[in-house]
């Protein structure tokens, strides 16, 4: 403990005792709650709009719902979901988005974990150089790669007869390729913190590389892998550009394309956008809360010393 900490401790103790009685504390909390509410206003408005009748949109503000709760209705959801699984409908888009997002997230998490294992615990020359190149790739903007990758897909199609352009695998591969640099960066930095002794202990206990990865490193990397999975999931789920370009003429499109297509030059179906956005948000939110418990810190406590 440093001198500064030692000196600061009695103060910290007295502050902890005083928590309940300090008015400044109350003010602070009120301010924080207000800021949080302010931040949530757009989302709340979208939520309210999605539960108001379509006809009321141009007539009264969404906030009137607080004085007239009778406005609330499930009608928007019924009509939007009522179209069923027809191609181009919202449920079809939801499935398309899931078919892209789930494999793209799983692949990035798995490949990044494996690559990071090799970069941190492997014994080959040039690991640092390879890692630096991968980090360098982080600066490449997606937009720069759209046309070259499309050309690459066509060339691949000419060569093999399967042109990924306009197909779901094509979009997934693109997302995986662009998710990997960050994924590897994140996982490598986390794995660097795993004591080498643990792997050596494993080697002596009789583990090969694959067992070490699966039974020692992977379980310890769960917090990092969970963060990566959540990030990657949200990025891919919310992607519009890549889907728009690479799904091309595909009749099935993603949720973001579905919502985007509701905006027209002179008008927009706001009820569809609001309701669709809510449906779209639910999945990432559910994922976030499901994985949140893996963010628990200090899983390495007790490994060494």
């Amino acid at each position, binding site marked *: 403990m440093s001198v500064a900490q030692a000196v600061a401790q009695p103060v910290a103790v007295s502050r902890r005792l005083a928590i309940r009685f300090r008015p400044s504390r109350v003010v602070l909390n009120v301010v924080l709650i207000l800021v949080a509410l302010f931040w949530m206003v757009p989302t709340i408005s979208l939520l309210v709009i999605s539960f108001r009748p379509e006809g009321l949109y141009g007539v009264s503000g969404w906030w009137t719902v607080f004085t007239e709760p009778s406005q609330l209705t499930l009608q928007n959801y019924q009509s939007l979901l009522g179209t069923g699984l027809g191609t181009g409908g919202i449920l079809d888009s939801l499935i398309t988005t899931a078919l892209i997002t789930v494999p793209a997230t799983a692949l990035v998490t798995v490949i990044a974990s494996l690559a990071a294992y090799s970069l941190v615990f492997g014994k080959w020359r040039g690991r640092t150089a390879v890692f630096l190149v991968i980090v360098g790739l982080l600066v490449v903007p997606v937009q720069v790669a759209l046309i070259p990758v499309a050309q690459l897909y066509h060339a691949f199609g000419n060569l093999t007869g399967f042109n990924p352009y306009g197909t779901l695998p094509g979009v997934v591969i693109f997302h995986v390729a662009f998710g990997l640099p960050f994924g590897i960066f994140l996982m490598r930095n986390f794995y660097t913190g795993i004591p080498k002794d643990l792997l050596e202990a*494993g*080697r002596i206990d009789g583990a090969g590389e694959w067992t070490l990865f699966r039974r020692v490193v992977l379980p310890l990397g769960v917090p990092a892998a969970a963060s990566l999975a959540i990030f990657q999931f949200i990025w891919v789920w919310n992607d519009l550009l890549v889907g728009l370009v690479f799904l091309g003429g595909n009749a099935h499109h993603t949720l973001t394309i579905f919502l985007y297509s509701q905006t027209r030059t002179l008008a927009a179906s706001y009820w569809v956008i609001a309701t669709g956005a809510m449906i779209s948000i639910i999945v990432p939110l559910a994922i976030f809360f499901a994985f949140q418990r893996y963010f628990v810190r200090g899983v390495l406590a007790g490994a060494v*010393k």
Partner: protein
Amino acid sequence: MARVALEELTKRYAGGNLAVDRLNLDIADGEFVCLVGPSGCGKTTALRMIAGLEDITSGRVRIGEKVVNLLPPRDRDIALVFQSYALYPHMSVYDNMAFGLQLRKTPKPQIEKAVKEAARILDLERFLDRKPGQLSGGQRQRVALGRAIVREPAAFLMDEPLSNLDAKLRVQTRAEIARLHQRLEATMIYVTHDQVEAMTMADRIAVINEGLLQQVGTPKELYEQPHNRFVAGFIGSPSMNFVETASHRNGKAELQGEGVNLVLDDAQAARLRDRGLEAVVVGFRPEHLKVGEPGGPGLRVSARIDVVEFLGNDELIHAVSGGRDTVAIVEADARLAVGDTVSLWAEPRHVYLFDPQSEVSLGGA
């Protein structure tokens, strides 16, 4: 259980740094050998080469009769206890100990029996379901030992297993490891920088400095007949006093150094004559100094007392003569005070002579 032999074992790092230099050491089946030396002397590197965690530049490691140079750690039938314990934090104590057996496809009931038995020996039965993070340092250390025991390896390797424990726990665990060795009759190779640990536990000690083996022997041999100045200074606590001396030309066999006067006995004088040495380094242990004057041949130190450390029965004295510090342990009732000039002496049999160039002991003592 097996014998372990190191033959001309050498480690040279990519930068050219020679960490271990032609180490030869034969460790008998069931023997407890300590590799001891200052930090960076190569003792841990040697251990890691035995374990298979470090490539061997040249030389051989034999476990049993088999040369294991090219075998991966898992095929060497050894267990290593790490300084950091290196417990798997996501596994329970039980799984930490069982992991090695699980990987070797040992049948479940057999694993359970081995783990339970190890837990009983190490008094860990209550903690089998806990994670390492919920254990104290001493308990973690015992889990690390348990992980090694359940494997029933040909040899136990230990890399400073006590250095992360507090002083009291260290003494306790030291006894526990010694007991464990007697009980398992296992070959143990134990690395430490603490000569007290080595002295108290080992059957034999190998002193290493700068990659080179200095001396191998029982604790008593190393203490009584150190081969050279390094071993003499490293073994024993507090460490030996050294003085550079030159012969005093008055016809008698007498050496003089700063604040020190040594009248040689016949054997010592003969040894000096045989080697044609005029100057030697004289060494004497603090515990062999007594207050007073030697009657006949022997060593005499006269110095001014600088610091007195009360140890209970004894006192540790730091005394200065010129620029040189002499440490002595004397009985507390000698009533010495800081500032006093004191005269200390030691018998000839407690005086060590070293060649000033090679620092090799001239023998005797």
